[in-house]
C-alpha cells in the first residue's frame, strides 16, 4: 500500500525524519507511535503530500506521490486538530467536501450514528471541540477509500462516541482497508492495532506486532513495553 524509501525531512536546521524506510502492506490497522516530536505527524503529512520531503521516495499504491495529487482520491484523512472555516454550516461543509471529491458517500448514516442531526444547521465556529471532532470523523469516514489515515482520532471524544469510532474502524478494517493511526492512548493501540511502528528521532525504532514488542522488551504490560522502549533509548 505504502512504500517509503530513504525519506529525509528537514525544517530549517531541524532534522525531523532521517533516512526512514517503511513498507506498509495492504490491509490492517497500523499504529504510528513515538514520543512528542518524533516525527509522527510529519510522516503522515509527507504521505499526504502536505509536507514536501527533502529527499526520498514515497509510493502509494505503486504510484509516486511527487507532483501528484490524484492519489489522494484514495485516502481519507482525519487531521489532528479539527479546524474548519468558522462561518460555514456543518451541512455546507459536508456538501462542499462531497462536491470537491465527487465520490459516493454515506454521510447520513454517520451523522445519525454520532447524533449530529441537531448541529447540521449550526456554524462550525460555534461547535464544541468534541462535536467538531465528530464532524471531522464523519468527513473522514463518509467516503469509501482503501487508505484511511487518522491523526489522534480520539481527541475530545466522549466514551460512547469512542466506542462508536472503534466499531467504525474495525468495520473498515474488515472491508480490507489499510488504516494508519497515531495516538497517545496506549489502550486504544493495544485494543486495535495489528502492527506498531515506533518512531524515534526521525527513524523507525521498532516495527512489529504488539506481541513482538512485548517479547522484545520482556514486559507483560503494553504500556510498560512502550515506556521501556523510551527508557532503553534514553540509556543508549
Amino acid at each position, binding site marked *: 500500500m505504502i512504500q517509503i524509501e530513504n525519506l529525509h525531512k528537514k*525544517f530549517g536546521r531541524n532534522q525531523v525524519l532521517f533516512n526512514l524506510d517503511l513498507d506498509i502492506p495492504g490491509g490492517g490497522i497500523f499504529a504510528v507511535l513515538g514520543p512528542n516530536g518524533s516525527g509522527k505527524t510529519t510522516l503522515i*503529512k509527507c504521505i*499526504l*503530500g*502536505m*509536507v*514536501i520531503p527533502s529527499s526520498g521516495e514515497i509510493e502509494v499504491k505503486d504510484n509516486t506521490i511527487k507532483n501528484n*495529487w*490524484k*492519489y*489522494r*482520491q484514495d*485516502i481519507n*484523512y482525519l*487531521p489532528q486538530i479539527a*479546524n*474548519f*472555516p468558522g*462561518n*460555514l454550516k456543518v451541512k455546507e461543509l459536508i456538501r*462542499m*467536501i462531497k*462536491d*470537491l*471529491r465527487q465520490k459516493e458517500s454515506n454521510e447520513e448514516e454517520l451523522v445519525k450514528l454520532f447524533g449530529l442531526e441537531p448541529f447540521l444547521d449550526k456554524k462550525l465556529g460555534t461547535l464544541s471541540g468534541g462535536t467538531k471532532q465528530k464532524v471531522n470523523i464523519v468527513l473522514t469516514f463518509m467516503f469509501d477509500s482503501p487508505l484511511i489515515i487518522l491523526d489522534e482520532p480520539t481527541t475530545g471524544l466522549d466514551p460512547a462516541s469512542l466506542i462508536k469510532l472503534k466499531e467504525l474502524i474495525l468495520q473498515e478494517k474488515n472491508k480490507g482497508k489499510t488504516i494508519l493511526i497515531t495516538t497517545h492512548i496506549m489502550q486504544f493501540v493495544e485494543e486495535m492495532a495489528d502492527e506498531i511502528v515506533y518512531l524515534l528521532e526521525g527513524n523507525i525504532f521498532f516495527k512489529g506486532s504488539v506481541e513482538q514488542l512485548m517479547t522484545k522488551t520482556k514486559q507483560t504490560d503494553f504500556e510498560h513495553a512502550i515506556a521501556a522502549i523510551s527508557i532503553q533509548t534514553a540509556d543508549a
Partner: protein
Amino acid sequence: MLKILKYSFYDLMRSRWNYVYFLFYLALGFVLLFLNNDLSKAVITLMNVIIVLVPLISTIFGVMYFYNSKEFTELLLAQPLKRSSIFLGQYLGVAGSLTMSLVLGLGIPFILYGLFRSDTIWNFSLLLITGAFLTLIFTALAFNISLSNENKIKGFGYAVLLWLFLAVIYDGLFLLSLIIFEEYPLDSFSLAATMFNPIDLSRTLILLKLDISALLGYTGAIFRQFFGTDKGLIVSILMLILWTVLPIGRLTYKAKRKDF
C-alpha cells in the same frame, strides 16, 4: 480551481468585511457625487482615494484572509486537489470579491448619477480598471507575504510596511534622487522608477488621462514619446499585467514547496 474559487468567493461574500468594503465605496461614491454635483471633480477625488486605499485594503484583506483561512486551506490540502489550484482559487476568490465590491460600490452611484450620458465615462472606466489591477497586484503581494511568514503579526507588519513603502516612501526617495541628480538627464530614470512601483504605474496611467496637458510641458524626448503617444498607455498596462503575473507566479511556486 474553479470550485475552490467558488467556495472562497462564497465564503467571502458572507464575510462582514467584504460588505464593509462595498458599503464604504458605495457611500464614497454617493457622497462625492451628491455633495459636489460634479462628475469630473468626483473622478479626480476618487483617483486619489483609489491609488492609496485600494492597495492598503487589498493588502490587509489578503493577509487577513490568508491567515484566517489556514484551517480551510489545510482541509483542502488533504483532498485530492492540486496545490496551485487551491491557492489560485483562494487568491482569485479574494481578489475577485474585492474587485467586485470596488466596481459595484463605485459603479452604482455613478451610473445612477448619469455616467453613461457623460464624457467622463472613459476616465471612470480607466479608474476602475486601475483599481482592479491594484487589487489583483496587492492581494497577490499579500498572499506572498503571508505564505512566507508563519507568524501572523509579522505578516501583517510586513504587509503594512510594504504598502507604506510603495505608497509614500518610494515616492519620497524617488523625488529626492531626482533633485539630487537634477543636472543629469533623468527622463529615462524617472520613467523606469515609475515602472518599479505598481502604485506609481497606476498613477501614471491616470495622469495620462487627467493631466496630459501638464505632462506634455516637459522637454525630454523620451517623455514626449511616452506621454505623447499611445506608447505610455500600452507600456503601463503591460507593466501592470507583469506586476500581476509575477507575484502570482511566485505564489504558485512557493505554494508548491511549502510544508503545512
